[in-house]
């Protein structure tokens, strides 16, 4: 079958450029009506110009809040599913962090906890990744989607019970997946370790999340779909396609399987976790500050740019490997093109925050979310540069990549989700966090811990890569020079894990020790 490779490459370029041109044409001809007024659709009357920081600050009870009965009626329906999603997500976060910390320590204490196979590095690391991706990030992201979608569409969440069933099934599937990995039953590819038999349960659970969201979207009572809605509605379609296609058993083998593997794994970041994080930030940043985002039209470019370019970056994980040159080059080019949508998001989110820096003092959730949004920009810029062939020769196969992965999945998505949880939970429960100081402690533990983590692995990773590229230095040098950096990573990871325990304590405090909010907008059912 004649595949004309150059043609494929050219086709991809042409289609991407044509789509961008179409987009610009569509905007300029008002085919897709997006004007700055639409950015204000997330506010109820009287909400603009006021900080929205209920339930997270000391002395909070005296502050006046705008009471929006419409939003309150909507929130009452989403409250229970969202609380359950966030609560169970937090359990996976704590477990996943402990496994991650153990895996990290094993790299400088190789004979520690070595008496049985489930404790070995290869399984601890895998447990960490799967629990934080499928347990923590997916569930907390879905909680955020379940909370925001009904609010921006002005209708209560449809079929909330189906969401509860989905949450139960999803948690069972993640638990079974964890047990399978610990016992050595694995599909054997990174990000796809959970056996396909259990993946079917995950897929069924996913359907229980998606059907209510699609129904809610179709029943919406607004003219305009707010930007967060674009990201969320696309993500809940992208992820099932990715997940099912990549998990079909027995269909792929050899290097073909490797391209499927990285098409999937990078799209989990690009088309699932990233839209969840970006969409959440797009709603909560302006909502908390009480001012619309800076340039609404640019957000459209950011969204379609992300879809076009992010979907094709996966093969940069196989640069210099046994895959056709053209597909590597294609992914490198698209990786660099990611600068475009990222800058579009950055203009909107960072400028909105920068014009309202006062609000960071007033709202701890905003502090988390705007820090996370900033890290999205950093992670994406770093990723685009890392995909360049010359840079990749040094960083590929080293701990630099691990640091980069955590900059994206942790410093961006996880930290946005911390902020979202702190914003949503007081409103969903009608209570205030009993110890506001512990919210700040959480923030500083995870940001300082992450800084230690990131800089140690980044610096160590570059040195490791340079050592491996120098034929005059034995391989052992690249191992030995990493040791102090791996120890530093464990220190950073310990601080992060401690922060997660503080997060869990805050949630438990809200559940069991919290004063009822004086102006509880939501009566728990």
């Amino acid at each position, binding site marked *: *079958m004649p595949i004309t490779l150059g043609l494929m490459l050219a086709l991809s370029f042409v289609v991407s450029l044509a789509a961008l041109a179409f987009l610009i044409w569509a905007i300029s001809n008002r085919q897709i009506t997006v004007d700055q007024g639409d950015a204000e659709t997330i506010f109820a009357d009287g909400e603009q110009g006021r900080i929205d920081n209920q339930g997270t600050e000391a002395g909070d009870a005296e502050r006046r809040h705008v009471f929006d009965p419409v939003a309150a009626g909507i929130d009452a329906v989403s409250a229970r599913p969202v609380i359950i999603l966030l609560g169970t997500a937090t359990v996976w976060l704590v477990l996943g962090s402990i496994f991650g910390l153990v895996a990290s320590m094993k790299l400088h204490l190789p*004979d520690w906890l070595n008496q049985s196979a489930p404790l070995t590095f290869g399984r601890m690391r895998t447990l960490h990744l799967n629990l934080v991706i499928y347990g923590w990030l997916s569930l907390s992201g879905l909680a955020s989607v379940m909370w925001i979608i009904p609010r921006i569409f002005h209708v209560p969440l449809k079929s909330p019970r189906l969401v509860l069933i989905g949450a139960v099934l999803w948690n069972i599937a993640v638990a079974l997946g964890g047990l399978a990995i610990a016992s050595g039953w694995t599909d054997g590819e990174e990000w796809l370790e959970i056996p396909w038999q259990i993946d079917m349960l995950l897929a069924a659970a996913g359907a229980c999340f998606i059907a209510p969201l699609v129904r809610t979207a179709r029943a919406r009572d607004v003219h305009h779909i707010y930007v967060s809605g674009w990201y969320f509605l696309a993500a809940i379609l992208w992820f099932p396609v990715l997940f099912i296609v990549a998990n079909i058993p027995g269909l792929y083998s*050899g290097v073909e399987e*490797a*391209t499927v*593997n990285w*098409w999937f794994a990078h*799209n989990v970041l690009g088309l699932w976790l990233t839209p969840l994080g970006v969409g959440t930030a797009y709603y909560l940043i302006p909502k908390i500050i009480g001012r619309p985002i800076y340039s609404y039209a640019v957000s459209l470019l950011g969204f379609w740019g992300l879809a076009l370019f992010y979907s094709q970056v996966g093969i940069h994980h196989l640069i210099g490997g*046994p895959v*056709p040159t053209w597909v590597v080059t294609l992914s490198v080019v698209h990786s660099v093109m990611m600068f475009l949508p990222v800058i579009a998001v950055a203009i909107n989110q960072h400028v909105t925050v920068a014009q309202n820096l006062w609000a960071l003092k007033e709202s701890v959730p905003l502090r988390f979310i705007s820090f996370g949004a900033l890290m999205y920009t950093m992670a994406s810029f770093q990723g685009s540069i890392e995909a360049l062939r010359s840079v990749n020769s040094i960083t590929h196969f080293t701990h630099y990549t691990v640091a980069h992965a955590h900059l994206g999945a942790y410093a961006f998505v996880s930290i946005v989700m911390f902020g979202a949880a702190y914003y949503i939970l007081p409103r969903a429960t009608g209570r205030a966090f009993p110890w506001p100081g512990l919210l700040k402690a959480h923030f500083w533990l995870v940001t300082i811990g992450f800084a230690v983590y990131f800089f140690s692995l980044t610096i160590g990773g570059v040195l490791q890569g340079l050592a491996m590229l120098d034929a005059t230095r034995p391989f052992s040098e690249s191992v030995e020079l990493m040791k102090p950096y791996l120890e530093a990573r464990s220190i950073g990871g310990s601080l992060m894990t401690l922060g997660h325990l503080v997060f869990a304590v805050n949630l438990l405090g809200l559940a069991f020790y919290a004063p009822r909010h004086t102006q509880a907008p939501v009566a728990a059912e």
Partner: protein
Amino acid sequence: MNRYLPLSILALAILAFATLMLVIAPGIQINARPAPEGLRPYTEAEARGREVYVSLGCLYCHSQQPRSGDQAPDGERGWGRPSVAEDYAYDQPHQLGTMRTGPDLLNVSARLPSEGWHLTHLYQPRAIFDWSIMPSYPYLFDHKDTAGPGDVVVALPAAHAPADGVIVASQKALDLTAYLVALDRTYPAPTNGLRDHGYGSSEGPEPTPAEEAR
């Protein structure tokens, strides 16, 4: 953007296009290549050993894809010639890997062919390299008073040997070792082997589309 259906269709169309480019097209191209003459399928013991390799997660520290000399000195380190897609014809799941906390293993047997060496190294890597950070795998071995008939005894230096008795390899350890000593793809690469030639190529230029079609 106010409409749900166009948004969904366009979003899925973009993903379908990406799937065509990253999955379907390379898949067709890769599957058209026959397995090289020098490559044989895994034996039963090797295949079982490969399952042990997969289940213990060796992948997370060891790649199986030597790079070309234009990019990195993998060949000079004894890791073998740059691998091509055809070299993986019998691999499922693939274990290409993305990490080199430890060295590349695609041709580990070409430089370390001894079964005994691998058993010792698996039982306690630091019995061989004091700098190693590889986990030890004591649960792949049995501690016995005396070796029975057919038992494979692991050679250990005094510092790592048990005070009394011997360490013998379990079936899993023997299978894993059988897989490791089978990892040798140093046979000549097929002409115009499929790989990333983006760093220039000592093996001549990339085949043109017309050559590829033939």
